[in-house]
């Protein structure tokens, strides 16, 4: 149960090795936080994530094996986590960025990305939403991307997977209205993390900590959508309405 000072007591992170997710866990951590479940494939990165959080003084960190693409395992996994106690915040943070040129060369890779980002994302969002509704409280935080708002030449496959996930999350926000549970859709711009280290930062780029802070503020305010940085909302509103001929020529 999130307390009166907006401090969650339990977190579930799907994609528990994501830099943004771990920054968000640190930002949400407080003496009130008792249980943090990192769901990810067994890996050195997962071990490091646990160690990093524990070193930061966060107690009650658990891991569960989770593969976003294996959707028929999701039900049992989520149910077992919720059976261990109420979950105040479910953070859906997994995703692959991929490479647009490779996706076009080998469409199988694009299908795989869609299976993780969109199909896997939809699978956990729908299941988590049902469990949150049943417990009558809690927040589903979904990491979307501004890339999903308008397809761009440079990353439209990735953008399409996030567009699909964003639509699921936004729809769930309405579906859960009045249930005691809520959805927060997070739309960051370019985030400087390991996943994007090989790319030149786009304008208005942010860090994982910036996204984490936006999640904390969004949860406190009960927002449905947050952009990171907040100015991205205005920028995207402009970009959405640009004529295609102009948009295509933009260096983004």
């Amino acid at each position, binding site marked *: *149960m999130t*307390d*009166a*000072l*907006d*401090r969650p*007591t339990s977190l579930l992170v799907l994609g528990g090795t994501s830099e943004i997710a771990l920054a968000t866990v640190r930002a949400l951590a*407080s*003496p*009130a936080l*008792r249980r943090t479940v990192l769901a990810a494939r067994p890996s050195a990165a997962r071990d490091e994530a646990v160690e990093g959080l524990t070193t930061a003084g966060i107690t009650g960190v658990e891991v569960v094996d989770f593969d976003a693409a294996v959707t028929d395992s999701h039900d049992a996994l989520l149910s077992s986590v919720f059976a261990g*106690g*109420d979950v105040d915040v479910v953070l859906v943070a997994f995703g692959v960025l991929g490479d647009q040129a490779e996706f076009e060369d080998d469409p199988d890779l694009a299908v795989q990305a869609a299976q993780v980002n969109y199909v896997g994302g939809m699978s956990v969002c729908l299941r988590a939403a049902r469990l949150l*509704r*049943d*417990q*009558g*409280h809690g927040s589903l935080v979904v990491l979307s991307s501004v890339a999903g708002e308008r397809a761009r030449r440079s990353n439209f496959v990735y953008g399409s997977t996030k567009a699909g996930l964003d639509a699921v999350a936004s729809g769930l926000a309405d579906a859960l209205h*009045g*249930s*005691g*549970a*809520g959805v927060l859709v997070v739309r960051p711009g370019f985030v400087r993390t390991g996943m994007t280290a090989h790319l030149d930062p786009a304008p208005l780029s942010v860090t994982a900590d910036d996204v984490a802070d936006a999640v904390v503020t969004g949860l406190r305010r*009960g927002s449905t959508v947050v952009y990171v940085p907040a100015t991205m909302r205005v920028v995207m509103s402009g970009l959405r309405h640009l004529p295609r001929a102009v948009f295509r020529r933009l260096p983004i």
Partner: protein
Amino acid sequence: MPSRARVVHVRDADDVVGEVLGAGPRGVLARGAGRTYGDAAQNGGGTVLDLAGLASIEVCDDGDVIAGGGALLADVVPAVLARGRFLPVTPGTRYVTVGGAIAADVHGKNHHVDGSFGQHLRWIDLVTADGSVRRLSRDGDPDDVRLLDATAGGMGLTGVVLAARFGTIPSPSPYVRVDTCRVDGLDDLMARMVEDDVAHRYSVAWVDGMAKGARLGRGVLTVADHAEAGASQRRDGTPSAGLPRLSMPPVPVSPLNRVSLGAFNEAYFRKAPREKLGGIEGLAPFFYPLDVVGRWNRLYGPGGFLQYQFAVPDSGGEVVRRSLEALAGIGAPSFLSVLKRFGPGNTASPLSFPIEGWTLAVDVPTRVDGLAGVLDELDGLVLEAGGRLYLAKDSRAVPATIAAGYPRLPEFQALVRELDPEHVFVSDQARRLSL
């Protein structure tokens, strides 16, 4: 965002038993008038029983009251006053139910003389997890008495109180005789309270939660006793009803801030007489000053507020000063800081809050920078001093703080496990605090 539950308006014992026996995995909880500050009367995803339909009130010849669990103290007061009696214990609002008063084992301005509400119970009718209705009498067998006492202060986790019989105290007139005095600093105020409490049934101090430095803890102390028969304030002898005359509309931004509250507190302090003895006041304005403004909680704006209330033994009196300093230090605006002395606690009830010594209650808007950290630190001071937090007010403590403050929590939990192994009775607070 508050959690969501299925709310059932029960009309009789059968309805309650039906809901208890048919409880789903998220359990059942009785809710009174909904005046608890935190999440104690919520049960996310489960069932919440609204007991407003169980509100009968009967005053017996000996002055005792037999009332439904959902009866409001606001309705009990006129019924007993008509017989020259008053509630044995009343909290600062009369818009609480008898069941709620038992669940929180509420205390009042007379705690140092009369103890807490649970100590005045003759019997209660309790629906337990197995669906049975048990009359637990004060002079019944030891198991019954044990459950009766655990229910007082038990935050609804032992069952649903259908009805209760409790004693009352004489009140020959609908008035109290009040001595009021203004005290410039905390040390003087606390010394004065120790001295004055002995001679009066009621005693409480309002503390200026915004004053700093030498003025820290300045306050207005009021002590009172029931006025003699025939005492009157008005020529026609009718007491002021003290019913809500104003209602606070919802506001997008709280009008309360450091400036307005500083001004309010200054004015309130100045308005109080330096010393005034034997003033006559109606019972309602004296006991329920806030009830005059309906929905006053909205004053704090959409961000809301919380109340922090702790009790410490006399040896921990310093925690009062350090709390006021710490809260003033982060500029937490408060217009309702109340300091009171407790008499001996209700040792029969494992989760009853009062312990002999001091209790301080402070209202604070939740959106004050640094509030969470300061309150966590204060928790530490309270525990170090051998004190505890009040569950009825709590909305942000952690399980370890409650466990350390209530050393008899395991005894309570063992009793609940025995009667309710499936945890049919549960609340958001119980989940948050692992009660």
